[in-house]
């Protein structure tokens, strides 16, 4: 997979098409052609997640607020992506401890169980793939996880979505069924994912504004939120949200070529 993300082959490099940013930009550009999406949708994601990061001292962007006009002035990296659409590049590490639910009851923190799991890997090379504008692997992985958990989208209190790029958040939530293709701009508008919003997303700041610890940025944030250990960015009365019981987490790899969905619950 690292070869997929970094190789330069044939004429691709001549045209600037190499690396993850170009791969996801290709997907995002195609989505703009097929339905209503683009910077007017993605700015809500970049700006909304930054508001969470501004509440999280661990976040790399903790003391760097971002307005919509900051987003619009952010330099192009690979059109249609600006710098603010790209995740951070971060030194650091992250780990978690997994055990049985039974053993967890004897350990110090509130018990957070894995309620649902799903995985689906549409592994076609991006230049030959038809899934880059959805449904991505998120569709079937999400269906599996919700089936196992025995819940619906309405039961989800917050989402921690793998956000290598802003578009990744849109297509993942779209494929999970939060909104239809092209409806994202309206869904995100008005602070939906921000502190106090009706569906908080990436409450640490995410890969865009907290730190790039791969899929462990979203997964560990979901656990910490359910344990109630998130300080100023803890979902609850202080942020204008309900105290969460169920959090939906995602991870994906390659250029939308692998996907895993994990539903966590506070017991």
């Amino acid at each position, binding site marked *: *997979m*690292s070869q997929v*993300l970094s190789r330069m082959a044939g004429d691709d490099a001549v045209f600037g098409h190499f690396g993850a940013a170009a791969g996801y930009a290709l997907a995002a550009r195609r989505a703009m052609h097929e339905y209503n999406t683009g910077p007017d949708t993605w700015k809500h994601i970049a700006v909304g997640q930054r508001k969470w990061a501004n509440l999280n001292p*661990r976040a*790399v962007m903790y003391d760097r607020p971002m307005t919509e006009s900051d987003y619009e002035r952010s330099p192009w990296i690979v059109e249609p992506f600006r710098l603010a659409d790209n995740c951070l590049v*971060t*030194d*650091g*590490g*992250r*780990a*978690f*401890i*997994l*055990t*049985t*639910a039974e*053993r*967890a009851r004897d*350990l*110090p*923190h509130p*018990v*957070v*169980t*894995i*309620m*649902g*799991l799903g995985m689906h890997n549409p592994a076609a090379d991006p230049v030959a793939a038809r899934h880059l504008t959805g449904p991505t692997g998120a569709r079937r992985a999400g269906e599996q996880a919700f089936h*196992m*958990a*025995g819940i619906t989208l309405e039961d989800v209190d917050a989402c921690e979505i793998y956000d290598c790029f802003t578009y990744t958040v849109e297509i993942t939530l779209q494929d999970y069924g939060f909104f239809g293709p092209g409806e994202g701009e309206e869904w995100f508008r008005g602070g939906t994912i921000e502190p106090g919003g009706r569906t908080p997303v990436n409450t640490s700041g995410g890969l865009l504004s907290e*730190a790039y*610890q*791969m*899929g*462990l940025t979203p*997964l*560990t944030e979901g*656990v*910490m939120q359910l344990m109630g250990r998130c300080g100023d960015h803890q979902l609850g009365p202080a942020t204008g949200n309900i105290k969460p019981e169920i959090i939906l987490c995602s991870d994906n*790899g390659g250029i939308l070529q692998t996907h895993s969905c994990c539903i*966590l*619950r506070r*017991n």
Partner: protein
Amino acid sequence: MTLKDKYAIVGIGYTPQGTVSDRTTLDFHLEACADAIADVGLKREDIDGLVCYRYFPPAPGEGDVTPYLVAQHLGLEPAYLAQDAN
């Protein structure tokens, strides 16, 4: 049989993050794991398995980081070792 609610995530390990100079890839692996173990108040011998997340090539001048190497440095003797592909 379902795996629903059978397993729990019980602790998290963090390290300094951002632009952090003079640290190696292995260094971050060790601190994150040690911090996670301490977060739950476990002992070395409680750890039965070690799964390293996505594999990336090592930074220039560094050796490969494998789960076995991480376990060796932490003094762990897990029965199960695994490395996720990227």
